[in-house]
């Protein structure tokens, strides 16, 4: 190797050491800034601790209840919604042309999977009339292809009503969101 190469190497190493030293010194300086923080003392912390424990004691026991309510209520609400929907529609839905039990169950399953029974979804199913629910489920069961290719090719979007279209778009968004 030529001496220039070694000189260059040496220079680089010296620069790195200088950088490292500067970096270390800077960290020390920054640490020194922290010493300016005033410790309010044990009395302050004892008072603060009492305040924390007081707030915790005042914390309504609902903390636990709320958690367990949330834990159990969500699946229960979803199940209740499925049951209500099933009871509302069972009398004439399965007799409709194009509708069958398998599609109906698939519809419900999709509704559950896509979170439409959750509280914050946009379309409140429980606010729809029996007729609207009936029509919605019928349309979904008949027009959405559950085999994975998202939609029936013959689906004629203008035929759908606003509510149905809304649900349909949400279904597609969910499908896209899930990468299917």
């Amino acid at each position, binding site marked *: 190797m030529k001496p220039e190469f070694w000189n260059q190497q040496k220079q680089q190493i010296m620069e790195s050491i200088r950088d490292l030293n500067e970096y270390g010194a800077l960290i020390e300086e920054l640490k020194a800034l922290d010493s300016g923080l005033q410790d309010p003392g044990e009395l302050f912390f004892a008072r603060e*601790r009492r305040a924390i424990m007081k707030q915790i004691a005042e914390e309504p026991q609902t*903390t636990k209840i709320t958690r367990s309510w949330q834990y159990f209520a969500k699946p229960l609400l979803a199940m209740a919604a499925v049951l209500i929907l099933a009871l509302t529609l069972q009398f004439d839905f399965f007799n409709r042309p194009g509708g069958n039990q398998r599609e109906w169950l698939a519809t419900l399953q999709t509704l559950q999977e896509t979170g439409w029974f959750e509280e914050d979804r946009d379309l409140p199913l429980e606010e729809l009339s029996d007729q609207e629910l009936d029509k919605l489920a019928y349309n979904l069961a008949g027009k959405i292809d559950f085999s994975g290719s998202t939609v029936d090719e013959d689906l004629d979007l203008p035929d759908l009503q606003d509510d149905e279209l809304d649900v349909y778009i949400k279904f597609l968004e969910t499908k896209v969101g899930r990468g299917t």
Partner: protein
Amino acid sequence: MAGRQAAFEPLVEKYQRSVFFTALRFLKNQEEADDITQKAFLRAYQALGSFRFESSFKTWLTTIAVNLCKNVVRGQRIMVEVPETLSDGSVERRKEEEETGDRKSQLKKALENLPERQKEVVMLRIYEEMPFKKIAEVLESTETAVKVNFHHAMKSLKEWIQ
């Protein structure tokens, strides 16, 4: 319930100072740091059931505290936004201080002027002496991003005070 509280008190005692000083570094105000410390422990108590033991209790608690501090800082930033034309000379005064100030105050100012995320990383790394991995957990970021932020922060600080 009383048993839960009793079990929680040693945790408060153990981590109270750490949470308080973290908040104090972020907020520079003892009263606000006190408030955040109390809130952080209350939140931790409320959410203890959802603690998944994926991080240490201290990391989890620090995350809660840092998030609370960030909310306060964000609120303050909105409040202090005033039209520049209403300047009372404080800008000029600050400029003068900067020119005459010593290295320590320069460094302090440089630290203050860092982008928020870089400042957070520097504080947690240097003052809390947290490993980068833990900082990433606290800031809900990645270890690489945290390292990059730290590197940029140190570079800026070095340039600033030179």
